[in-house]
């Protein structure tokens, strides 16, 4: 039988899915044991017991200095920034994306500019951002927004342009003004796609968040990672990275559920 026709059973599928994670774990444990045998103080690949210690310290014991539990304080700070940044990006992308997608004049005005801006590496312009926005939350949120907005605008504009011309004309024959067509025809069809676009931008958004927190912050997952990185405290960094990954995967999953829940028709469309 050809390989392309071999279908694993569902039990087999589960085994296969888990395997790579187990292999990575095993490789880690082996690597860690080897390094610790060489140098019992090795910090690069700490043993599992160090993780338990570190996780306990970060996630369950209040910090001596602030009295807060660091992992939760960091998570709250980071998620607030992340979702504020993404929220702003979404709002801007929705408005500008729809303007570009619907109005030829706006398209002529903004499309080339947005295309150029989307290629500017925002990390290189950080000093300007901090001067303009100050060093508080604003600039961190702004970095996330600046980082992900141009791509979201381009994506949404494209989706708006891709709407069949027939639908717009139909809406005009139903008495719709530009505003009404935007509100009742284009917007609702763009929203589920917005969620998909958003899901793709969660990874980059975390990157920008971590970069912003590395420069100035007093709490946050990225801040903590950069703070302890000076001491190569991998026993803290690994759990934090894992936690960020879990948060990102969870957000992705929830957003997809949300799309299906709020826009059931979008799922129907996909299947046809």
């Amino acid at each position, binding site marked *: 039988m050809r390989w392309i026709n071999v279908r694993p059973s569902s039990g087999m599928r589960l085994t296969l899915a888990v395997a790579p994670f187990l292999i990575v774990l095993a490789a880690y444990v082996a690597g860690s044991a080897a390094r610790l045998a060489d140098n019992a103080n090795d910090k690069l690949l700490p043993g599992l017991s160090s993780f338990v210690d570190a996780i306990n310290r970060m996630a369950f014991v209040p910090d001596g200095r602030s009295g807060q539990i660091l992992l939760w304080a960091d998570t709250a700070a980071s998620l607030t920034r992340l979702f504020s940044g993404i929220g702003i990006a979404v709002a801007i992308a929705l408005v500008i994306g729809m303007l570009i997608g619907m109005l030829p004049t706006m398209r002529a005005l903004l499309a080339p500019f947005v295309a150029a801006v989307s290629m500017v590496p925002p990390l290189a312009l950080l000093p300007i951002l901090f001067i303009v926005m100050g060093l508080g939350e604003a600039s961190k949120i702004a970095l996330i927004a600046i980082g992900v907005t141009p791509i979201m605008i381009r994506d949404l504009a494209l989706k708006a342009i891709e709407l*069949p011309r*027939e*639908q717009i*004309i*139909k*809406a*005009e*024959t*139903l*008495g*719709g*003004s530009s*505003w*009404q067509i935007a*509100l*009742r*025809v284009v917007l*609702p*069809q763009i929203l589920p796609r917005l969620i998909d676009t958003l899901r793709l931008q969660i990874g980059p958004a975390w990157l920008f968040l971590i970069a912003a927190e590395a420069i100035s912050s007093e709490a946050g997952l990225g801040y903590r990672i950069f703070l302890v990185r000076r001491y190569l405290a991998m026993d803290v960094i690994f759990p934090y990275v894992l936690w960020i990954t879990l948060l990102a995967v969870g957000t992705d999953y929830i957003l997809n559920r949300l799309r299906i829940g709020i*826009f*059931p*028709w*979008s799922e*129907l*469309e996909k*299947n*046809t």
Partner: protein
Amino acid sequence: MSAITIDKVWKEYGDQIVLEDISIEIEDRAFVALVGPSGCGKTTFLRMLLGQEQATRGTILLDGTPLPPEPGPDRGVVFQRYSVFPHLTVLGNVLIGKEMTAARYSGRLFGAARKAAIEEAKALIAEVGLSHALDKYPAQLSGGMQQRLALAQALIMKPKVLLLDEPFGALDPGIRAEIHTLMKRLWHENPMTVVMVTHDMREAFTLATRVVAFERLRDRPEEKLRYGATISRDIPIWPPRRAGEPSLIRPDRDGPVQKGQ
């Protein structure tokens, strides 16, 4: 009243002449079937009636006044595809026209006005036989049901002119026959003029009061750019069909068309 006067209309795209010197009077409540080979400009002609395209030369009058240069609620349209909104249910698709004309900013109705609109929409949905599918989305409907929905959606606006661009071309023969019957009834009952583009001669002769053929009379390669399509035939159906009246001579002719016919 909804008579259309087309007077010496030309349509060019850049150098290419698509339509050449078209003049035709379409009387009130006519059902014009537009036929012709692919690419001869039928859709272009319909687009001009719709206001989506402007004639390069000549004038188009609706009841004696020039057509506004963009689509509006006086002219309804049904396309072969994409004629309904995938994000609205059957009811929502029919309601949206009422809502957009009534509520200028929100594009939505509330309270009593909404109830009244829903009643009207439901009546129309019942007419096209979709009462059982009120809350379904288009993706859950068959092709024939989608086109029936598109008709109801256009009719709720009580358009003076209904424009159809191969509306039934993608349907199975059996379903097409059913929808022909429906179409005929709707035309009899609603005060509107219909212009329908079709590839199917049988459909043209089954439904129309008048069959108009477009053709490029000069179609050699070197002539393609310089000459456009014109009206090559204009055949009134005999015995005449008249909106709201059964046929005098063969009263059964305009009755239901049988399946598979």
